[in-house]
């Protein structure tokens, strides 16, 4: 069985549309989104029909919780004033352009999704199984911490997103943690593509494929400009380098970027 997992969409309906099509072409039988539908990009409401019409099951991210519950900020947990400044622009734009019906839909999303395939217990969360807005970066998450999460949350495969960077770690007893990446913005590596994840579960084995996805990023940049979103965000879409929300990056991940 092949399953597709999409991380943060950040209003990028163009990438979501491309990802749904790509995953279906690759034989994905079911599709999931791990939350954070809003932020960063333009036209939030365009994301919802794609998810609903294509039967994508969605976990609630911190952004979705905030928008759905009319909170004042995104709960991303930034500590740097510049990061919070840009995050707030993005949040207020997204809130103002998300319909009341869609806000209600976000409010009702589950904080986790669990299911089993061939006896493998799969747990989908946004940041970590214990806290929606916890950053699990590859370089700051010990393996024994992930082992404990898998034990305590009784899961064989845990999938999350939230950091914006995809990675995976093999655990004991053939268990696995996967950060599925995000569709919303490129991975701070100078490339304009975004990423999603395919899981192939067969005879008790699990294969993980991280899929680089091309989409019409120039159109996204144009639409963001038309919506008067910050030029800093548009630079990221066009260049593949993150320009904001950098202070939460660990040194190792930060070093891989340009800013």
């Amino acid at each position, binding site marked *: 069985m092949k399953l597709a997992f999409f991380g943060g969409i950040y209003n990028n309906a163009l990438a979501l549309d491309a990802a749904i099509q790509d995953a279906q072409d690759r034989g994905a039988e079911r599709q999931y989104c791990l939350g954070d539908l809003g932020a960063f990009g333009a036209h939030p409401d365009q994301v919802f029909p794609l998810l609903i019409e294509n039967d994508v099951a969605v976990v609630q991210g911190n952004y979705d919780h905030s928008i759905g519950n009319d909170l004042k900020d995104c709960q991303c*947990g930034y500590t740097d004033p510049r990061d919070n400044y840009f995050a707030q622009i993005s949040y207020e734009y997204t809130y103002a352009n998300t319909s009341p019906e869609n806000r209600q839909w976000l409010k009702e999303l589950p904080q986790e999704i669990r299911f089993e395939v061939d006896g493998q217990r799969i747990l989908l969360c946004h940041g970590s199984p214990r806290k929606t*807005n916890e950053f699990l970066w*590859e370089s700051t*998450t*010990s393996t*024994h911490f992930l082992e404990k999460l898998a034990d305590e949350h009784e899961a064989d495969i845990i999938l999350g997103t939230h950091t914006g960077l995809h990675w995976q770690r093999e655990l004991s007893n053939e268990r696995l943690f996967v950060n599925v990446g995000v569709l919303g913005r490129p991975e701070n590596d100078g490339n304009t593509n975004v990423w999603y994840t395919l899981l192939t579960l067969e005879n008790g084995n699990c294969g993980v494929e991280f899929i680089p996805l091309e989409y019409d990023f120039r159109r996204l940049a144009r639409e963001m400009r038309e919506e008067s979103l910050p030029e800093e965000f548009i630079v990221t879409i066009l260049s593949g380098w993150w320009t904001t929300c950098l202070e*939460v990056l660990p040194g190792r991940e*930060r070093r891989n970027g340009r800013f």
Partner: protein
Amino acid sequence: MSTAIKDVPIVALRALDELWFQVSGTLCNLECSHCFISCSPKNDSFGHLSFETVQAALEESVPLGVKEYYFTGGEPFLNKEIVPILEETLRYGPATVLTNGTILKQEWLERLRTAEDCSGYTLEFRVSIDGPSPEINDPIRGERTFERAMQGVEKLVNAGFLPIITMTRTWGDEEDQKILSEFKNVLANHGYSRPRLKILPRLKIGAEAERSCGYSQTERVTQELMADYDKSQLVCNHSRIVSDRGVHVCPILLDAPDSILGDTLEEAMQPFALRHGACFTCYLYGSICTNASSTTRE
């Protein structure tokens, strides 16, 4: 320092996410006037941790699911085993070391960079410099310490690290942005073009209590203050620290007799009563000891 007020809130350890090591005890080559545990070249009330002590705690930390390791002092690089200790730690998980930056050697940093590359985990350096100029920094940290610490920053940058510069606020809150902006310019002039900066509040204990006036009896966390408060902002909710005397509740209260919770990590998992003035600072500012990459807020 302890308070007699009633209704002292008790905070349980939610999970031992961060394990700290008081790796150089209270020994430091500097004698900063605001040091909350009065470290100095002569203060040996806490001693160095040996490689074996750290290794035993690392092993004990595995089944407890510790996420990250932090090293502090004193000045950690006075401990002659610090480089092998950090190399060993990076086999277990991510490490952060808090240093004054004044005695770093290029050869140590090259070794540590190699260890970081091999481990897959991050090695963070937090360098304490208390302002963007010698005029602000040196009266607190000592003569020429600004210049020497900036040389340390240059060495770290040359070795490929992106040090986090931490400064203790000795100015009004309203001046934060001006100070940060000045510091960014100064660091850029020293070859550090994308600096990471963190401002810390002053803790009015240790040497700082003598310099200022310490905490008043009303500066305490109460049960009432804990209502609707995000406990994860408190260090004692997710950390413990190993010294040569045992395992303490947090790095800040090292000197307080009631901070020792046991000889082993397991013993030190017990809850802690927030009866100290410094708990009030931790409460007010939140996450003061943790890196930005590991903070979560409600």
